[in-house]
């Protein structure tokens, strides 16, 4: 996938259904991690988050599944969205995954459970309610950081 950015002020736009589909898969994976308590599942999801956070949500394995299997089968007008909001959400997911894995490795399963729980809540809200994490928490974080 090659993208030509004409101006730095013109943000990349992607099919808005991609991140929503990815949120569904993320919800299933994180739910499995939370129920089973298996650290490696959170590690795997963490890698997906890292790709989404650093390269962009359109480059994750979930986005690949969306493009190759889902997108050709759905009809309707393509609604695009700025890539930055889902990319921000992936970064927040990555932080929870890192904290959860660290807690597990440190022998504190409660940290794994809480961090995975928060990541699951965010993914589930996105999948089921089209929740925009960046809208709700970015400005608060920005306000705190510049305090």
């Amino acid at each position: 996938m090659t993208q030509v950015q004409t101006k730095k002020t013109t943000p990349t736009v992607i099919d808005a259904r991609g991140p929503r589909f990815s949120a569904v898969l993320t919800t299933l994976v994180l739910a499995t991690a939370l129920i089973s308590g298996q650290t490696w599942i959170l590690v795997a999801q963490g890698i997906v988050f890292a790709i989404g956070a650093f390269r962009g949500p359109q480059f994750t394995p979930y986005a690949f599944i969306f493009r190759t299997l889902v997108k050709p089968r759905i009809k309707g007008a393509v609604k695009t969205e700025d890539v930055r909001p889902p990319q921000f959400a992936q970064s927040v997911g990555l932080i929870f995954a890192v904290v959860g894995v660290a807690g597990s490795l440190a022998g504190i399963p409660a940290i794994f459970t809480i961090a995975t729980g928060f990541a699951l809540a965010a993914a589930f809200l996105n999948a089921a309610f089209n929740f925009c994490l960046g809208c709700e928490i970015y400005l608060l974080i920005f306000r705190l950081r510049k305090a």
Partner: protein
Amino acid sequence: MKSLIPIAIVLLASTAYGIWYTRSRGEFRAKKSLHGPTLTAQIIGAELGSKATMVQFSSAFCSPCRATKVLLEHMVETMPEIHYAHIDAESHLELVRKLDIRSTPTTLFLNSAGVEVGRAMGTPKRDQVLKALAAIA
């Protein structure tokens, strides 16, 4: 198989929050008292409308901000007494703090004097905007 209690808590709590979130987005909330700061054309970067002004705060990581901007800009085209101003929250942090803007998009509804009478968080529907504007005397 470990305990199912954590996932039950997460799913119940986020479903409850999600329902509240969906219902509350776009809803106009009137302020109880009109003692807030007076916003001038200089502060918001646009002339105040003779009847009302809608001031939208947006940020970078916000998909519904664009949709809100498109809707409100389109609506004011046919309403000469209503003006619209768009403010990037990140570069107006002092104003954001003063007005206690917590999420984006947040749209403030100002009366003709430039005082906030209420606000809506999230993308409002056309009807919600019309209702909010009608409530401004």
